[in-house]
C-alpha cells in the first residue's frame, strides 16, 4: 500500500479545463471518495492517476515515485470500472489470472492466488463461467477480485456500484467498506452518489467544474460546507438555501426577506454577516435543524407548505419561503397539509450563512 499525492493537476481538452489545479494527498490505507455531479472532472482525475490519459500539467506521485510518465501497467495500481470491463471471451478464472500472467508469475503461484481471491469473494463455484453467464452482482465481484489478486499499491474505483440495482448496491457498499477495513487498502473511489461517499470514505473530495471544492472527512464536509455548492450537494434532502438581505439597525443585525419578515441573528452570526462582501446573504439550513410550527411563534418566520412526503419513520415537508424551497423533516405523528401556512424556526447555532456574491461560507473569525 502507498500514499498518493496530486500536485496542481491540470487536464485540458482544447480550451476546456476538465481538471483545474487539483491538489490533494491520499494517505496510506485511506479511503478517499471523489464526488461531484456528472462532468465535474472526478473520473478524469481518476484516469489521470491511472495513467489512461496524459496529464496537461502538474504532478502525480504514488508512494514516493512520481508516475507522470509511467504507463498504467507500471504504476502498481488496480482499477474497478463502472461497467466492470471483464474480458468477455475469458472465463472468470482467466479474468482473475490475466493480471498475474501479465506479470509473468509462475503458473502454480497464479493458480494459488486466483483460488485464494475466489475464496475470499465466495465465487469458487463460478471460476469456469464466462462473464455473460453471471449476474450483475457476481460480475462486480469478479471485477473486484481481478483488482485484488495483484495486491496493488492503490485501488482505483470508478463508480463500481452504479450499474447495480438499489438493493444490491447497498449490500456491495458494505462489502467494499469491509474490504477496505480488512485490507487496509489505499482506495480512490469515484462516485456521483454523495450517500456512497459519505458512508464509505475516510475523506471526501467534492469536485465541481473541474475544481476541488472541499477535501475533508464526511462529518466535517457535512457540518462545515465551504460554499453553497458543497452545502447543496452533500446531504439528502439537500440543504435549503434561502437568499435574503442583511440590514443593521441599532447595532442589531437582522436578515430581511422581500416578503417583509425579519429574522434576528445571534451575535456570532451577526459577526459572520459583517464579513460578507455585500448585504446579499444566503441562509442555509438542513432539514433536521428546522422546527415547523402550525401557528405563529416568536422568532419563527412564515412559509407555505408545498408537498408532504411521508417515508414511514420520518416525513419530509417542502415549503416555500422567500421564493425558495425549504426542506423540513417532521416526525410522522405530525399531520401537515399541503398549501398550509406554517412557521419555521431556525436554530441559530446550526444555520449556515453564505455570501450571496461569492457563494462562500461566512465565518465568524
Amino acid at each position: 500500500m502507498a500514499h498518493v499525492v496530486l500536485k496542481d493537476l491540470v487536464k485540458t481538452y482544447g480550451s476546456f479545463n476538465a481538471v483545474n489545479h487539483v491538489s490533494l494527498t491520499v494517505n496510506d490505507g485511506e479511503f478517499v471518495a471523489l464526488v461531484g455531479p456528472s462532468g465535474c472532472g472526478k473520473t478524469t482525475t481518476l484516469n489521470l492517476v491511472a495513467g489512461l490519459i496524459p496529464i496537461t500539467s502538474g504532478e502525480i506521485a504514488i508512494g514516493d515515485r512520481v508516475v507522470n510518465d509511467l504507463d498504467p501497467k507500471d504504476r502498481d495500481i488496480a482499477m474497478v470500472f463502472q461497467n466492470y470491463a471483464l474480458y468477455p471471451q475469458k472465463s472468470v478464472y482467466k479474468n482473475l489470472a490475466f493480471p498475474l500472467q501479465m506479470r509473468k508469475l509462475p503458473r502454480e503461484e497464479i493458480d494459488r492466488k486466483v483460488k485464494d481471491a475466489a475464496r475470499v469473494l465466495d465465487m469458487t463455484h463460478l471460476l469456469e463461467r464466462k462473464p455473460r453467464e453471471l449476474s450483475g452482482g457476481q460480475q462486480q465481484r469478479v471485477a473486484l477480485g481481478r483488482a485484488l489478486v495483484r495486491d496493488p499499491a492503490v485501488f482505483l474505483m470508478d463508480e463500481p456500484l452504479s450499474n447495480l440495482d438499489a438493493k444490491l448496491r447497498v449490500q456491495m457498499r458494505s462489502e467494499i467498506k469491509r474490504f477496505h477495513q480488512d485490507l487496509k487498502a489505499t482506495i480512490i473511489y469515484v462516485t456521483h452518489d454523495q450517500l456512497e461517499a459519505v458512508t464509505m470514505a475516510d475523506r471526501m473530495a467534492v469536485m465541481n467544474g473541474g475544481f476541488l471544492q472541499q477535501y475533508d472527512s464526511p462529518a466535517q464536509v457535512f457540518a462545515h460546507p465551504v460554499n453553497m455548492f458543497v452545502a447543496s450537494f452533500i446531504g439528502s434532502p439537500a440543504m435549503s438555501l434561502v437568499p435574503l438581505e442583511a440590514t443593521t439597525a441599532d447595532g442589531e443585525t437582522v436578515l430581511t426577506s422581500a416578503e417583509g419578515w425579519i429574522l434576528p441573528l445571534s451575535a456570532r452570526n451577526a459577526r459572520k454577516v459583517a464579513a460578507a462582501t455585500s448585504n446579499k446573504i444566503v441562509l442555509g439550513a438542513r432539514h433536521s435543524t428546522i422546527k415547523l410550527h402550525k401557528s405563529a411563534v416568536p422568532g419563527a418566520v412564515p412559509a407555505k407548505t408545498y408537498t408532504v412526503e411521508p417515508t414511514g419513520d420520518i416525513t419530509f415537508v417542502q415549503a416555500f419561503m422567500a421564493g425558495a424551497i425549504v426542506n423540513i423533516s417532521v416526525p410522522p405523528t405530525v399531520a401537515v397539509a399541503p398549501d398550509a401556512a406554517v412557521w419555521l424556526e431556525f436554530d441559530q447555532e446550526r444555520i449556515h450563512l453564505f455570501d450571496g456574491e461569492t457563494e462562500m461560507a461566512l465565518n465568524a473569525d
Partner: protein
Amino acid sequence: MSSAGERAVIARRSRRQVDGWRWAGRIFLVLMLLYTAAPMAWMLLTSIKSGFAAMQMPPQWWPEEPTLASYAKLLDPQNSVGADFLRFFWNSLFVSTMTTILAVIVAVPAAYAFSRFSFPGRKFLFFAVLLRNMFPAVIFLVPLFILMRVLGLVNTHGSLILTYLTFGLPLAIWLLKGFYDNIPIQLEQAARIDGATRFQAFLLIVMPLSVPGIIATAIYSFIAAWNEYIYAYTFLSKNDQLTLPVGIQRFFSENTTDFPGLMAASFLMSVPVVVLFLVLQRYFVRALTEGAVKH
C-alpha cells in the same frame, strides 16, 4: 358486451390487414428467389448437357443425357482447356487471397486507429477513404493503367492486387471501425492497468473480440477480388496470367460457343465463394448488423 364485440371485430380486421401485407411480402420474396435462383439453376442444367443439347430450340428443360464431360475436361490438366482453366483458377485464387491478406493487415490497424485515437484530420481522412468508392470503376481505369505502366506492373498480378485494395480497403476499414466502436474502451484500459502494453491490450483483448469482424471483412474483399473483371481484362494480356472472369471469356468465340463448358466453368468459379460464405456466413451477418445497433 357490444364494445367487446366491436373490439374483437377491429382486432380481427387489423390482423387480416397485417396478414395481407405478410402474404404480399412472401409472394415478393418468392418472386425474388426465382429471379435470382433461376439463372443459377439454368447454369447447372446447361453444364451437364452435351454441346448439341445446349443449342436445341425449343430448349431441353431437363437434359436427356446428362453428362459430366465438361467438368472432366475442365479439371483435366492434360487437356489444354483444362490446363488453362486450372491455371486461371490458381491465378484468381492467388490474387484474391493476397488482396484479402493485405486488406486485413492494413484495415485492422487503420480501423482501430480511426475508432480509438483522436488525431488531426481524423474525420476528414475517414471520409476521404470512401472517396474512391464514390466513382464508377471505369473512371480510374486509364489513370491506374498509366500508373501501373510507370511502376512497371502491367501484366503482373501485383497490379491487380494493388488495384483491388483501392476499393476493398475503404469498405474493410469502415466495416471494422464499426466493430471496434462496439468494443468498450474500458476493456483495453483494464488490460493496460492489469499489466499489458497498449499493443498487448490490442493483441490479447481486442483482437480476439474482433475476429467476426475480421472474417466478414476478409470474405468481403475476397469476393470482390474474385469476381472483378474490368481491371483484370485491362491490366493483363498474357494468357498464363489471366484470372477466371477474364479467362472464362475464352469459351466464347466468333463461330461457336461451348455453352456447357462455359456453364461448368462458371459453376466451378462460384464454388469457393459459396463454400466460404456458407462456412462463415454467421460472422458475416453479425458483422453487417453489429455497427447498426447500440447495445
